[in-house]
């Protein structure tokens, strides 16, 4: 029974991703891009889920790993002469590097993972709001350095002419692979230890869980996946600036995760696809389609209203019930009576 449910937890999201890919591949050219970009968003959101969902700690810094992944993959995919024309002071080892598509994605994942590990060693000691602010500080530092240090990247300029290799096959395989890795991690021993620590840090620590180490494992894995997502993103867009991987992306990916539901893979995938779809639809409606002609700016207002509404009236996310632990109501009441103030304290 539990094995069947376990598999369905993976099969559901994967099937959904495949369906979106299928729908997109038969759609017209302009719409197809929206579908591909939804799949890339889903990849990034699943990466974010690996850390936030399993650890219960909010990270505002994951777009840093997307950013370094995107720039790493972009820089190793562009010919030397072109790189030097954008940024003449580039370190020679970056300027000379030129590899194929798959290798560039691997490099993106590696750079994201290593960066996340280095950041995570000190930061994973924090939790709650301090962790939120510290990861936000990482985002600000990453953006500031990438933008102003011409030796490691294009600085404030645009890195363009990156080969657009993120076709349907690539983004679908990428998103599904990341979903499978996320699933495998959450079912593994480290994943379960971290989830235990999320539910009750004191009890987990008492049972010998090294919370710092488990969080670091998740953070590093999540950073590598986010870097990979960044690689997919740069190969989708063909060009990248530091502004595209900064506050807006941070907000939208976090909103996708929380709207869908932080604590399940389903939530991450549903949230990402739903919000992407809505965003694309509203952007089209602003240009005027099928009798709908919204004023410019209405997209953001509608999106903001929907996000706020979902968050206010369903704080656990759209699919929060789907994977709720199966506890009978009677048992739930008895558990609650044993710890009358648990809920208040936690909030």
């Amino acid at each position, binding site marked *: 029974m539990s094995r069947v449910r376990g598999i369905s937890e993976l099969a559901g999201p994967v099937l959904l991703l495949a369906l979106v890919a299928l729908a997109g591949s038969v759609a017209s050219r302009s719409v197809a891009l929206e579908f591909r970009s939804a799949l890339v968003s889903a990849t990034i959101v699943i990466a974010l889920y690996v850390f936030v969902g399993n650890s219960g700690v909010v990270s505002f810094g994951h777009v840093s790993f997307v950013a370094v992944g995107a720039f790493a993959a972009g820089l190793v995919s562009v010919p030397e002469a072109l790189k030097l024309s954008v940024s003449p002071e580039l370190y020679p080892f970056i300027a000379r590097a030129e590899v194929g598509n798959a290798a560039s994605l691997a490099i993106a994942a590696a750079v994201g993972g290593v960066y996340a590990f280095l950041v995570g060693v000190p930061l994973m000691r924090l939790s709650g709001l*301090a962790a939120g602010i510290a990861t936000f500080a990482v985002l600000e530092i990453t953006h500031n350095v990438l933008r102003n240090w011409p030796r490691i990247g294009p600085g404030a300029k645009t890195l363009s002419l990156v080969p657009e290799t993120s076709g349907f096959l690539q983004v679908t395989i990428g998103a599904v692979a990341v979903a499978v890795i996320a699933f495998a991690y959450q079912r593994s021993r480290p994943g379960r230890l971290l989830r235990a*620590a999320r539910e009750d*840090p004191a009890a987990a620590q008492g049972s010998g869980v090294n919370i710092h180490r488990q969080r670091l494992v998740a953070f590093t894995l999540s950073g590598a996946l986010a870097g990979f997502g960044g690689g997919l993103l740069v190969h989708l867009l063909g060009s990248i600036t530091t502004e595209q991987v900064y506050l807006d992306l941070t907000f939208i990916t976090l909103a996708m995760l*929380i709207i869908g539901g932080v604590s399940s893979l389903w939530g991450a995938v549903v949230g990402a696809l739903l919000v992407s779809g809505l965003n694309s639809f509203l952007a089209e409606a602003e240009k005027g389609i099928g009798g709908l002609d919204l004023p410019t700016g209405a997209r953001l207002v509608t999106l903001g209203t929907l996000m706020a509404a979902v968050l*206010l009236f369903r704080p656990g996310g759209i699919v929060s019930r789907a994977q709720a632990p199966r506890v009978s109501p009677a048992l739930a009441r008895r558990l609650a009576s044993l710890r009358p103030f648990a809920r208040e304290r936690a*909030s």
Partner: protein
Amino acid sequence: MNALQTVVDAVALGSLFALVAMGIALIFGVMRLVNFAHGELLTAGAYALFLTTELPLAVSIAVLFATVIAFALATEVAVRPLRAASPAAMLVTTFALSFLLQSVFLLVWGSQGDNAGILPELNRAADVGGLRIRWVTVASIGVGALLLVGTALLLNRTTIGLEMRAAAHDFRTARLLGVRTNRVIRFAFLLAGVLAAAATLMLVVQRPLVTPVYGFQLVIPALVGVVVGGLDRLTSATLGGFAVGFGTSVLGDVLPSDGRVFLPSVVFALVIVVLLARPSGLFTRARTVVERV
């Protein structure tokens, strides 16, 4: 003399951040809610000033306070369903509210920016022994100190203040003992509205160009300051806001000119160091805190 001028400028920025930080800390204290949408109170107030530039000063200021307080009370109604939510959900919801309000401002007024100049005479600088001190700096410090003392007195010396502290300490027990928590929360938002309106006034004098992200730009450093200073007390949080403003301004003057572009990195690296060294806050009494995730 140059060093003194640096300090004066730093105090100016610090007191501005402190005013914003105080409002955020007040709401956090009562509701355990980090209100990102606090910045949009400032933006709303600044647009209110922009719309009333033609009217007499007293009317402008009255409209400013009315608008900001109305926005604050509306925020309270909006976040009411959140009381049982997890801190992460709360954080992102107020972020979404802030995003929503920003997009509304963008829809109505566009991103170009509108000039809401008020009390321009406060911007003039007085020359005190070679130091340039703008009147608005003096006013900000005065208003900030006054509001801090006033709020502290209110919290410590009045019944509603006692109820607010009780609700902040243990919401459920306070409720069981007869504290009307709904009223307490509404009052906290009202107070935050007053603080935000005062902050808006000081802010608009110095930065008259109002854009949809006007308040949001200030909320980020103020929020960082609140966490760095220590969330649990109004004073420590306010001091944290001051410290971040002061530090940013001093570093901006001290850094060599070719390193100045990296100012945000230096500031945020310091923030990380402080958080690692003292996760419960720079200005809180050292004690072991069991962090709840």
